[in-house]
């Protein structure tokens, strides 16, 4: 992420406030930051990818159980959350655009805060509506998983629980990344308020935007995989 080392005992530079002195110039810093974020996102693809691969393997082996599991989820909440996240990516992009076009920190902060609100809404819907509902319905995997209440699951029951395992692991990991994203946005708001950005240097905003969009894209894969596979099959 961006570096803001303190100035050494150098003569005054014509460098913007965010400049880090291990670099030769701002352009190098911007390129390094951008490459660093893309490299980090590659690691995140491999990280989520491991779980996606395991999910795909088990789904192909135990389709019936996974469909039953998928039907336990409420598609409407997933859809609302998807819309919320897509909007948040829009507001994030608008924040960056504001910086790019030199609109002043007020506007940038406004879009960043809106992004945070939408992100918090996503998490709020997930935790209070979906997960709480799952807990009350006894479909959280573990000791209290409601096998006895669902004789219709039959022999697929272990795979329904396995689907719910994947559901909680994958959306949980995603939620952790969202929370980290909210933290990053907070830092960005503070940095903007302290006038660290200008139309010449707003790279931290841009690469944080990359992170935010990535987390959004992960959700866009999760939503169909978890919520929608049941839709093609009869309940």
């Amino acid at each position, binding site marked *: 992420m961006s570096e803001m080392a303190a100035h050494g005992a150098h003569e005054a530079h014509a460098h913007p406030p965010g400049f880090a002195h291990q670099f030769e110039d701002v352009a190098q810093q911007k390129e390094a930051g951008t490459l660093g974020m893309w490299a980090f996102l590659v690691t995140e693809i491999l990280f989520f990818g491991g779980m996606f691969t395991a999910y795909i393997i088990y789904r192909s082996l*135990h*389709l*019936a159980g996974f469909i039953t599991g998928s039907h336990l989820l409420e598609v409407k909440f997933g859809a609302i959350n998807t819309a919320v996240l897509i909007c948040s990516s829009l507001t994030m992009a608008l924040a960056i655009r504001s910086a790019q076009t030199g609109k002043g920190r007020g506007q940038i902060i406004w879009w960043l805060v809106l992004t945070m609100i939408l992100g918090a809404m996503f998490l709020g819907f997930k935790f209070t509506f979906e997960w709480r509902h799952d807990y009350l319905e006894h479909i959280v995997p573990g000791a209290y998983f409601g096998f006895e209440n669902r004789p219709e699951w*039959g*022999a*697929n029951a*272990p795979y329904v629980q396995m689907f719910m395992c994947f559901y909680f692991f994958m959306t949980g990991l995603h939620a952790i990344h969202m929370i980290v994203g909210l933290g990053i946005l907070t830092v960005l708001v503070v940095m903007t308020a302290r006038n660290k950005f200008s139309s010449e240097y707003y790279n931290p905003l841009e690469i944080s935007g990359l992170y935010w969009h990535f987390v959004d894209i992960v959700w866009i894969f999760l939503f169909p995989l978890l919520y929608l596979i049941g839709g093609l099959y009869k309940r």
Partner: protein
Amino acid sequence: MALAWAAIPFQPPSASSISEGVDQLYYLLTGITLFFTVLVFSIIFYFMVKYRRKSPDQVAAETHTSMVLELAWTIIPSLICVVLFVWASALYVRNSRPPASSTEIFVIGKQWMWHLQHPEGPREINELHVPVGVPVKLTMTSQDVIHDFYIPAFRVKKDALPGRYTSLWFEPTETGTFHLYCAQYCGTNHALMIGWVYVMSPKDYANWLAGGEKTESMSQQGERLFTQYGCSGCHVADGSGRAPSLAGLYGKPEKLASGETRVVDEALIHQAITIPNSVHVPGRQAIMPTYQGQLDEEQILQLIAYVKSLGSQERNGK
């Protein structure tokens, strides 16, 4: 010839039909390793002596990269690797197919012992008696964690996994007593999960089988379990019960209610007993109860032997 090889120290006895082949490949690999090791060591040593620095300011002579050399020492090792790969793979593929006339013996690994059962009934713990010159196929599973069945003298090894069946085969070529090990770490007494393979002459083996306690064969034990656990109540032999008849079923491809077609083998029968409604057939209700936890792996193998006996008119029924 085989006896002469067996006398070479530092190798296990060569006691199966494949062990000589594996050993030949091993010697080839050792030869290649020795050759290149000696080559590299001696060239380095030679250069070390010949080009040692004789005065503090001595510089190197100029040399140029040689494309010929680079290609040579890329292509030659590649060709050697191709030869090794083809040789080893051919041996492996040939060694992985048990002959059709194999005797089947069943193995269950559990912490920390091997349970073996002959189809005729006798059971063994950490010991395996087999006749010389007869191919034997071991069908294996584990009751708990992953184990690995290893007989160095036969050069065979295969994991025993919980929840599935694996198999290996061998044909002993010498009588004698040979080590049997567990070769996949499985907990505290992994090193104690060892035993012996006794290869006997056919006559001695027949005596051994007949001697000892009179036991039922595996399929007889399976038949007893079939009645004891109520299977015969639904799986009536003439097909009039709630569940399909199992006569002649083993080895046939069956279309399941999920749409896929699977051959009725040990794995499918195991799945049908432990997670029944995942493999039910069209036209029947998915109402079979599961026996997971009620039957252990040995009993499931006995039931499988019984099912095989119902459909094996063409085979030597056991």
